[in-house]
């Protein structure tokens, strides 16, 4: 059924406005299975909004999403799409998300956080959910912290638990929304390391980030967003080393202004 390289998630003519401000001005994007896409852009470029529209945490103003060849939602007036709640829940169960602020459930232990999705959304038996959750915690290097509440974990550890929580749903697409932006600099490495390790699985991932160096090594494809449009789309080598657009060049220069 699923062949590596076929399109898993497609975004068509996506628009998003907040009040009178149009943040996304028509995004078309085909994500192929196994691709690792890094989304770059300055703040306000719409990169986080794009990611949040892909699992409809943000309701697109216009356009549609196609997951595994099936359009999500029903067309409505003005090019908008109407979504039923059950349909959104199914979509979100298949498109995982890791947040900038981790958003772990503070009243649950690390293990319970990871178990929650399989247990209450996928309806897995408790013993099985516990086993796989433990395995996912070990995968992110936190097998020994299963019984710790989030308040007892460092930011980096919390984010790794959040990654394990998303992985436990075995999503077809995994979205990372600036996963290291709220971490102390010395904790960034451990989280990026975990994300990098996930490459082995061949899982489809989209990552909004400011870590250009990581994006270069991790991604198979880089998008550069500017003022709500995709300005650049290509392999890391090309986008980061010989960008087509002046805007992209200026953006990259700001990151490479100081070197030693």
């Amino acid at each position, binding site marked *: 059924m699923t062949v590596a390289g076929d399109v898993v998630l497609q975004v068509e003519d996506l628009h998003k406005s907040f009040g009178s401000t149009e943040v996304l001005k028509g995004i078309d994007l085909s994500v192929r299975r196994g691709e690792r896409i890094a989304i770059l852009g300055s703040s306000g470029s719409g990169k986080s909004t794009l990611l949040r529209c892909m699992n409809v945490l943000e309701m697109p103003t216009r356009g549609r999403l196609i997951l595994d060849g099936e359009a999500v939602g029903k067309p409505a007036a003005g090019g908008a799409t109407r979504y039923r709640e059950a349909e959104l829940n199914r979509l979100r169960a298949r498109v995982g998300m890791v*947040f900038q602020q981790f958003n772990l*459930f503070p*009243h649950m232990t690390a293990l319970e956080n990871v178990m929650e*999705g399989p247990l209450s*959304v996928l309806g897995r038996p408790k013993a099985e959910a516990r086993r796989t959750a433990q395995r996912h915690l070990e995968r992110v290097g936190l097998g020994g912290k299963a019984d710790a509440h989030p308040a007892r974990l460092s930011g980096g550890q919390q984010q790794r638990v959040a990654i394990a929580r998303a992985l436990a749903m075995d999503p077809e697409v995994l979205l990372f929304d600036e996963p290291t932006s709220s971490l102390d600099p010395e904790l960034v490495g451990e989280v990026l390391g975990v994300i990098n390790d996930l490459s082995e699985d061949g899982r489809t991932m989209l990552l909004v980030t400011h870590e250009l160096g990581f994006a270069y090594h991790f991604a198979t494809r880089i998008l550069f967003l500017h003022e709500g449009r995709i300005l650049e789309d290509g392999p890391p080598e090309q986008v980061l080393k010989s960008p087509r657009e002046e805007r992209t060049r200026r953006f990259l220069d700001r990151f490479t202004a100081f070197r030693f």
Partner: protein
Amino acid sequence: MGYVWDFFAVARNADILLAGLGQTLLLSVCGIAVGVAIGGVLAAMRLSGRRTLSWPALAFTEFYRNTPPLVHFFWFFYGLPMAFGLTLPPFAAALAALGVQSAAFFAEVFRGGILSVETGQWEAGRALGMGRVRLMRRIILPQAARRMAAPFVERSFELVKTTTLAAALAFHETIYSAMVIVTQTYRPLEVYTVVAGLFFVVLFSASQIAEWLEARGRRAGAR
């Protein structure tokens, strides 16, 4: 010539007073139950995001928050028979007034607790594919409950004190019993001092228990 205190007048009628206190507690417990049930519905209506539901709930809440409770007691006791030919016994009328009035306050406690949970928690639950009900039950309410605890206890204490208004409906709670004793003994100062003491003992012990429970909840949450 100093006042000569005589608490024996109260002691001789302790049975009347304690029976009244029993009725006060009964009315309080029932009032909290009714208030919580209706308050829960009101809070759900306010949070539904649908105007047809949230506006009536808002109007209801604001009305009861901004009118004197004694009027509500009179309406249910004297007003219902006149307007609808429906006569309620004092306990039922007091319970209805108390329940409906406190529902408005409990609704605000629930709503405040739920709104205090960070949006990131809602998003994390949704991102896992959780439906509205499951998200509420598994993620939001357990966190909101802890933050509701203190204001909930506060409102419940207010409710216990408001039950004294039922005396105006000739319901035999503590104040009414006190008035009965006063007419027999002419010792209002002693009787009402003892009433204040009784309320203090009941509510102060309740607050100690509530504090202990809250501290235990906090410890469980931070483990």
